[in-house]
């Protein structure tokens, strides 16, 4: 093989991937070397045979993709990473700590090299107050006072409520009487209207029914007459047909009897002839 025209160029030529000067060079080379040209043509034949190979049909299987291997975009992966979760947990803990510390009045102190964490430390002095001692009589008098004041309040409230209820009930009695009379009036009016409407409809129905009966009786009469005429025509036709049939049968009968008669005569004649021949 020519050093310049090697198998690389011949392959490129075979697949039509040469152009310009390179293409001309290969063409000239092949023209000058018929054996090589024949070989390239044979390879081209192989390519044509390969082209006959048909694609194999195949049904793709159903893949079940596992969730844990599902790829995620980078930013999404960051939010699902363990580092992100740990950082979030620590931040949340610190925030909760400070908020609870604020509401519980937490204090941090370092005294003589010791670390002291306390809650509500400032308010403790305010809350502590001298304890006042009560006797049984004191407690009883306080309870009595409280009960009497509660009963006074209750009595006053009960009185007010009963007044209001009385007022409302009086008003309702008046209103209900008025409403009942209005309802009676309306219902009477409605009854009258309904009665008038029902009478009107009844009258219209009677008229319509009467018209219908008159009309239908006329139609029925006409229909009956037509039917009678047609029936008489049918009877006439039937009678004629029957007469024709009887006539035809009579003719046949007559013909049969004639035939029978002639055959009988023939037989008699032949018998007579035979008898005569026997006598002779």
């Amino acid at each position, binding site marked *: 093989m020519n050093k310049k025209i090697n*198998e690389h160029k011949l392959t490129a030529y075979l697949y039509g991937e040469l152009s310009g000067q390179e293409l001309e060079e290969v063409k000239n080379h092949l023209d000058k070397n018929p054996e090589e040209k024949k070989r390239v043509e044979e390879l081209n034949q192989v390519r044509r*045979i390969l082209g006959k190979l048909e694609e*194999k049909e*195949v049904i793709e299987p159903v*893949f079940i993709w596992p969730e844990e291997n599902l790829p995620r975009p980078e930013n999404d992966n960051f939010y699902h990473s363990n580092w992100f979760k740990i950082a979030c947990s620590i931040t949340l803990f610190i925030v909760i700590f400070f908020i609870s510390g604020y509401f519980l009045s937490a204090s941090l102190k370092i005294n003589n090299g010791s670390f002291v964490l306390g809650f509500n430390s400032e308010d403790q002095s305010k809350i502590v107050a001298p304890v006042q001692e009560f006797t049984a009589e004191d407690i009883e008098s306080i309870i009595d006072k409280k009960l009497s004041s509660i009963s006074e309040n209750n009595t006053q409230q009960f009185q007010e409520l009963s007044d209001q209820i009385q007022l409302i009930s009086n008003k309702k009695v008046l209103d209900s009487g008025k409403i009942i009379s209005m309802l009676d009036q309306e219902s009477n009016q409605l009854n009258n209207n309904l009665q008038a409407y029902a009478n009107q409809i009844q009258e219209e129905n009677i008229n319509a029914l009467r018209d219908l009966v008159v009309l239908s009786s006329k139609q029925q009469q006409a229909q009956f007459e037509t039917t009678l005429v047609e029936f008489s025509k049918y009877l006439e036709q039937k009678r004629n047909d029957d007469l024709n049939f009887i006539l035809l049968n009579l003719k046949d009968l007559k013909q049969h009897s004639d035939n029978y008669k002639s055959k009988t005569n023939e037989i008699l004649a032949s018998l007579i002839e035979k008898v005569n021949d026997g006598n002779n």
Partner: protein
Amino acid sequence: MYGETLLDIAMMHSDSVIDRAQNGDKEAFNQLVSLWYKRIYNYAYKYFSEHNLASEATQKTFILVYRKIDSLKNPDSFKGWIYRIATNCCHEEERLRKVNSNSEPIDLELSAKDRRDDQVGVEDKIVNEELSEVLIECLGQINPEQRQVIIMKEYEGFKFREIAEVLDISENTAKSRLYYGLAALRKILEEKNITIESWCNE
């Protein structure tokens, strides 16, 4: 080699589907499988000349694609990327077949059967459906490296540059493998008395 079908066009314009698959959309990933399964299977089938191995390699390819799709930087290079995975799966499957003596040597048995049939006479065997199998078997008899380049160039529509990228070789090596692969195939076809004329007469 083949005319462009709607499926081919869809495969070439599957950037958005790849994007969605990279973002964890399972439906998009299933779409990718639908688009590419037949292509990858046929690639593996021509490499192994045998259905079971081809199916195994194809399924492993898609499992790897599923696991690694987020590592694909540029959706435009998906074709080369998936074929690189498929090629590796084919190599791995072939290695396992050789190592594991217990694995069923179906393809070898088939080849032996076909060889026996060849002795009876190839001419009788050449009918439309069987001829494809004979051709696949012929492909299976040439050097695997040359076979791979022939399949990629003839059936998968790769450019020499793309073949070089997928197989991690130089363009000239790809061309040499193709040239000598076709020459070897010519010899095998000649021995089996298969010519384009006999084919056309069918």
